[in-house]
């Protein structure tokens, strides 16, 4: 299919009539069109116009669940400027497919009705353009079938490669597998094959039911056993499907949990810090209790320290009197008193009152203490002497303990402060505990293992049932053949079963071969599109049995998780292009390939390879690009390839509308320079 031209009239933001000519035969191999415009100018809108014209559909896969009423096609400003008047929206396509030229036109009438816009199909026409320029109309009732023959509506979206689709294919996720499975099934008729298998199976079952109510006893019995076997198989398959759904749900739940845990990764270090602080705090508090206990034990010693200065003073006083000989006195007081009373010295001399000797003795008396006092003073001196030696050690010890207790308290204060800070950073108490999420995840994993084991058992049972089924079928066929010579019903039944078996066999072989074929084709493309460094390590693209994609390195080891975003993009493009080529009859993609901003993550070498290679793979390449993606560098590459045919700019006009301006290729560089400036 090659698009020659498209005309849009009052379609989306294209007010009035706009014509884009993509290709004329005189352009030869220049099959690349660039549609250039900022975001929101209508690049994807033009692809939407093509789909609308071909199939009457307004929804693209990227629209997701957007309600149909919001996918308005009629130009808004045209409606606003013509209140109460219907506005016609038209899209026309002129294209060639396998040497037949077509002119397709589709129109809707739109009208504002209060807050909403009603759009109704107004016109649909298809003409075959003959070689001599005449037109031959196609019946309205046959238009859809003709178009479907050219491009199956199930794959309509597959030829728009947007960033989102490319991104989806690079992720090893259920969405990726589904996308690939859908692509293979729809593009390569695998889904048609599967429906055919079921339909023929239905016929076979109906015929068997008719046979079982016939008079052939052995046949009836075999059919009954076969029926029971198939019922059991169906039940097993249903159980397997349910298990698969449960496993899928569990995996989704794990993904959800992982996302929640990802959030926790930001605060996981805070949670760990909090735990560590709490442990330290607990330890400090324990040490504080121990320190306090030790200090209690030192109370007596500490109390003694209060008296230390007094004790030292008293000791020094007693000690000084000792040094002077006053303690103990040389002569006892009672002896001095006796001498004074007897007025006679111990040497026998008389001592007269008032004499000098008498005065000395009186002085002596004054200086001496009584025996008890002296004894007490001496004991005190001895005790204090010992005591004061300990003061210094005790003081050190008490001071040490006090300091220790002070430090512990200070640490406790700091820890509490740090804990408060960390808790504030962690957030409110509504946050789930990361540990609980971990536990939940582990339980889910265990659950999946159990489910998979269960599924494995059922699968084994299913295999046994299938073997039994094959045996019964063989017996049944023999019986039918015996009966069938004169029984048309038996022959029909055999034919239906044989056909079903044939289709099942073909399905198995085909899906296996096709995955290998797509992998091989994608690999060739992949290696042509990769840069030099990529080619050194990345060797093969593989489509796995579960429809996931994998890239093998030079050691044939899975490497997808390690490739860059740009390489992933190249991988996706290679896969889609390979799929499209294999779905096409020749060695080219026979449907125009639309690429919406494909260069985003690609390095220069990748862009260059893409620009050089893709135009040779597809009948037509329509590149939708923004100003940041398509610059002079890319323009020069395209020019050098010799494939560049057309360049259209989407420019804003009034009231949110867009005008389409064609630029001559030769003036593009100047235009792009202006845009870049």
């Amino acid at each position, binding site marked *: 299919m090659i698009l020659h031209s498209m005309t849009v009239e009052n379609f989306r933001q294209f007010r009035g009539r706009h014509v884009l000519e993509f290709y004329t035969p005189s352009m030869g191999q220049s099959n690349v069109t660039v549609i250039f415009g900022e975001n929101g100018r209508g690049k994807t809108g033009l692809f939407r116009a093509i789909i609308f014209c071909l199939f009457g559909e307004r929804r693209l896969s990227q629209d997701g669940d957007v309600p149909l009423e919001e996918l308005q096609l009629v130009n808004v400003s045209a409606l606003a400027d013509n209140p109460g008047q219907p506005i016609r929206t038209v899209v026309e396509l002129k294209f060639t497919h396998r040497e037949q030229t077509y002119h397709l036109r589709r129109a809707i009438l739109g009208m504002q009705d209060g807050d909403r816009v009603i759009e109704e199909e107004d016109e649909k026409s298809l003409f075959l353009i003959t070689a001599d320029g005449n037109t031959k109309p196609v019946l309205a009732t046959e238009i859809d079938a003709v178009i479907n023959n050219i491009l199956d509506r199930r794959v309509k979206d597959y030829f728009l490669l947007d960033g989102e689709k490319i991104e989806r294919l690079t992720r090893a996720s259920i969405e990726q597998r589904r996308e690939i499975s859908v692509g293979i099934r729809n593009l390569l008729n695998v889904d048609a094959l599967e429906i055919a298998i079921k*339909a023929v199976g239905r016929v076979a079952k109906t015929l068997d039911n008719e046979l079982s109510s016939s008079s052939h006893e052995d046949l009836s019995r075999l059919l009954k056993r076969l029926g029971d076997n198939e019922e059991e198989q169906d039940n097993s398959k249903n159980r397997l499907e349910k298990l698969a759904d449960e496993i899928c749900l569990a995996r989704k739940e794990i993904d959800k949990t992982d996302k929640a845990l990802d959030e926790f990764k930001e605060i996981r270090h805070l949670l760990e810090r909090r735990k560590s602080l709490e442990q330290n705090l607990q330890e400090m508090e324990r040490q504080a209790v121990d320190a306090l206990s030790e200090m209690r034990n030192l109370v007596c010693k500490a109390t003694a320290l209060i008296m230390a200065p007094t004790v030292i003073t008293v000791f020094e006083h007693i000690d000084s009197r000792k040094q002077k000989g006053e303690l103990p006195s040389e002569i006892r007081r009672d002896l001095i008193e006796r001498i004074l009373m007897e007025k006679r010295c111990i040497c026998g001399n008389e001592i007269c009152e008032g004499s000098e000797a008498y005065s000395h003795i009186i002085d002596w008396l004054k200086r001496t203490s009584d025996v008890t006092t002296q004894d007490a003073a001496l004991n005190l001196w001895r005790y204090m002497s010992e005591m004061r030696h300990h003061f210094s050690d005790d003081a050190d010890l008490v001071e040490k303990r006090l300091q220790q207790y002070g430090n512990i308290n200070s640490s406790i204060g700091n820890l509490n402060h740090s804990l408060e800070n960390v808790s504030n950073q962690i957030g409110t108490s509504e946050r789930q505990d990361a540990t609980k999420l971990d536990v939940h995840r582990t339980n889910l994993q265990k659950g999946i293992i159990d489910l998979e084991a269960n599924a494995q058992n059922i699968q084994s049972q299913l295999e046994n049932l299938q073997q039994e089924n094959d045996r019964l079928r063989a017996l049944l066929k023999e019986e039918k053949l015996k009966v069938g010579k004169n029984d048309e019903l038996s022959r029909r039944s055999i*034919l239906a079963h044989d056909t079903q078996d044939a289709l099942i066999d*073909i399905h198995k072989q085909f899906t296996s071969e096709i995955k290998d074929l797509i992998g091989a084709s994608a690999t060739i493309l992949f290696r042509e599109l990769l840069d030099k460094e990529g080619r050194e390590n990345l060797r093969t693209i593989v489509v796995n049995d579960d429809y996931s994609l994998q890239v093998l390195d030079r050691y044939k080891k899975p490497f997808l998780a390690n490739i860059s975003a740009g390489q992933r993009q190249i991988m996706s493009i290679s896969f889609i292009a390979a799929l499209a080529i294999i779905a096409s009859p020749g060695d080219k993609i026979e449907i125009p390939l639309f690429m919406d901003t494909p260069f985003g993550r690609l390095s220069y070498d990748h862009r260059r390879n893409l620009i050089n290679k893709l135009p040779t793979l597809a009948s037509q390449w329509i590149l939708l690009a923004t100003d940041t993606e398509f610059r002079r560098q890319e323009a020069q590459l395209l020019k050098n390839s010799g494939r560049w045919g057309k360049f259209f700019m989407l420019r804003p006009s009034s009231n949110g509308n867009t005008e389409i301006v064609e630029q001559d290729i030769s003036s593009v560089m100047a235009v792009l320079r202006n845009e870049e400036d």
Partner: protein
Amino acid sequence: MINEKIVEKLNVYSDEVRELAMQAIQLSESFPEKAIADQLQGIVRRLAKQQDGDDQ
């Protein structure tokens, strides 16, 4: 439009099986399973008769 590779694989089967299979695949591109089965009943009858005619 049936994929050429599928058509190739059908060539190893009998004419009747091949025809019934191709009709089933072609119908499955446009119709739901039940509707296809209803249509195939008639085709099966015709082919079975044709088979009987060939055998005779």
